[in-house]
């Protein structure tokens, strides 16, 4: 079993109002089969034994589908591995003697709650602004009653793969939430069920996105590169079209 020794520089911050700073920790004999979060678990166990405050970090399913975990490792959201969340990043990616700088996802719209935990409820409010379909009456429609081509269904599913982790915002030089918002708009805009509210949706969600303090898109493609679900910026192009249609030709 391979083991590695690591030095960790982790951002410690008591709460949103406190000033934070980096603390350095050393870890010995970390099994390379461990996930990144398991490595942090080992650190926290050590800290608890020493009577120190463990490092707070978000996590839930630990299988890369819930969107709860995330931190910036050595300047890259979710770490150096492609298309994985932090919990699916494994320690075999690193070498013994490495120093890892671990920072929370930073954005004006994501206040830091504690250490690596950030409040991403701004995303929820963007969804509340229009990321839904209203079905006000009638019984449940049969699954195959509305024909959709498989290509369209696939594109919609690709967009729906977004787990809302916030890596796009964290990695964007402008702190924009365009990839997230575009995925949430695309999954509905592509399907027949999303049509009635289509023109209003893009406007409402973009307005909320701006109000939350997210930045604007300068087409740097950074979000696409770090997205653990491989959401394409083609969705951002679709969002731009949706927004134009909505604001220029909406009722």
């Amino acid at each position: 079993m391979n083991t590695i020794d690591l030095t960790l520089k982790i951002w410690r911050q008591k709460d949103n109002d406190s000033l934070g700073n980096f603390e350095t920790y050393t870890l010995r004999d970390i099994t390379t089969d461990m996930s990144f979060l398991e490595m942090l678990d080992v650190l926290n166990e050590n800290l608890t034994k020493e009577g120190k405050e463990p490092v707070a970090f978000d996590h839930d399913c630990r299988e890369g589908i819930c969107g709860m975990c995330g931190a910036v490792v050595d300047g890259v959201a979710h770490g150096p591995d492609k298309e994985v969340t932090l919990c699916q990043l494994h320690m075999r990616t690193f070498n013994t003697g490495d120093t890892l700088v671990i920072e929370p996802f930073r954005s004006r719209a994501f206040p830091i709650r504690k250490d690596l935990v950030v409040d991403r409820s701004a995303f929820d409010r963007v969804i509340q602004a229009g990321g839904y379909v209203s079905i006000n009456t009638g019984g449940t429609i049969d699954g195959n009653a509305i024909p959709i081509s498989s290509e369209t269904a696939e594109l919609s599913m690709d967009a729906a793969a977004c787990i809302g982790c916030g890596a796009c915002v964290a990695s964007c030089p402008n702190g924009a939430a365009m990839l997230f918002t575009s995925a949430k708009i695309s999954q509905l805009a592509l399907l027949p069920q999303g049509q009635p509210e289509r023109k209003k949706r893009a406007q409402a969600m973009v307005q909320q996105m701006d109000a939350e303090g997210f930045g604007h898109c300068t087409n740097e493609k950074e979000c696409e590169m770090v997205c653990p679900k491989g959401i394409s910026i083609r969705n951002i192009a679709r969002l731009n079209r949706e927004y134009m249609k909505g604001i220029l030709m909406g009722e």
Partner: protein
Amino acid sequence: MWFVSFVKSSIGKKIIMATTGLLLILFLAVHAFGNAAIYMGSKYFQIYADTLHGFPVLVLIFGLGLLVLFIAHISVGTLLFLESRSTRYSRYEVNKRVVENTFASRTMPFTGLFILVFTIIHVFGFNIAAPAGVPISVTVKEYLSGFFYSLFYIVSFVALAIHLNHGFWSMLQTFGVNHPRYNCLIAKLTIIVPVFFLVLFGGIPIYFMTGAGSAY
């Protein structure tokens, strides 16, 4: 008011940048067409210049339109630059970009500023403060035969090419043009378009600097 919320929104500002950018590229194309006459000799360039300025009202109207485009592109661009400045630098202890080749996109505000400085000097040199009574073809030949004047022009055109390299692609993305069927072509155009302008415009100072254009 739809227009107010359009201008206030982040995407609205980007669409203004893209639209004015597209129109400025169209202006560049027309400008490059006229300037290309110089490669056939100063006589032909003078004919083009005289013909163009034979329509003073049209030149005035289109000139003012161009000024409006410029001001819109620069002011909205500056606004976006200032908005993003707070988040753009030193957010993280380790700053790293996963995307390779970000030079053009990172330097957009600076190449833009350089083009603005160039435009002011260019308009003053060849239009507002051009020597009176001298044909424009002679002024061009005199100015661009100077080494430093020419060098400044070439550097400006390089800045323009870098600006267009990201700007052209960014414009299409903002307009929502992103489809696997065309992305390969678009990727080629992000090189072809800037190089086209760089060769056509940058060739003129080289043409005079090297003395190739002095005989005509």
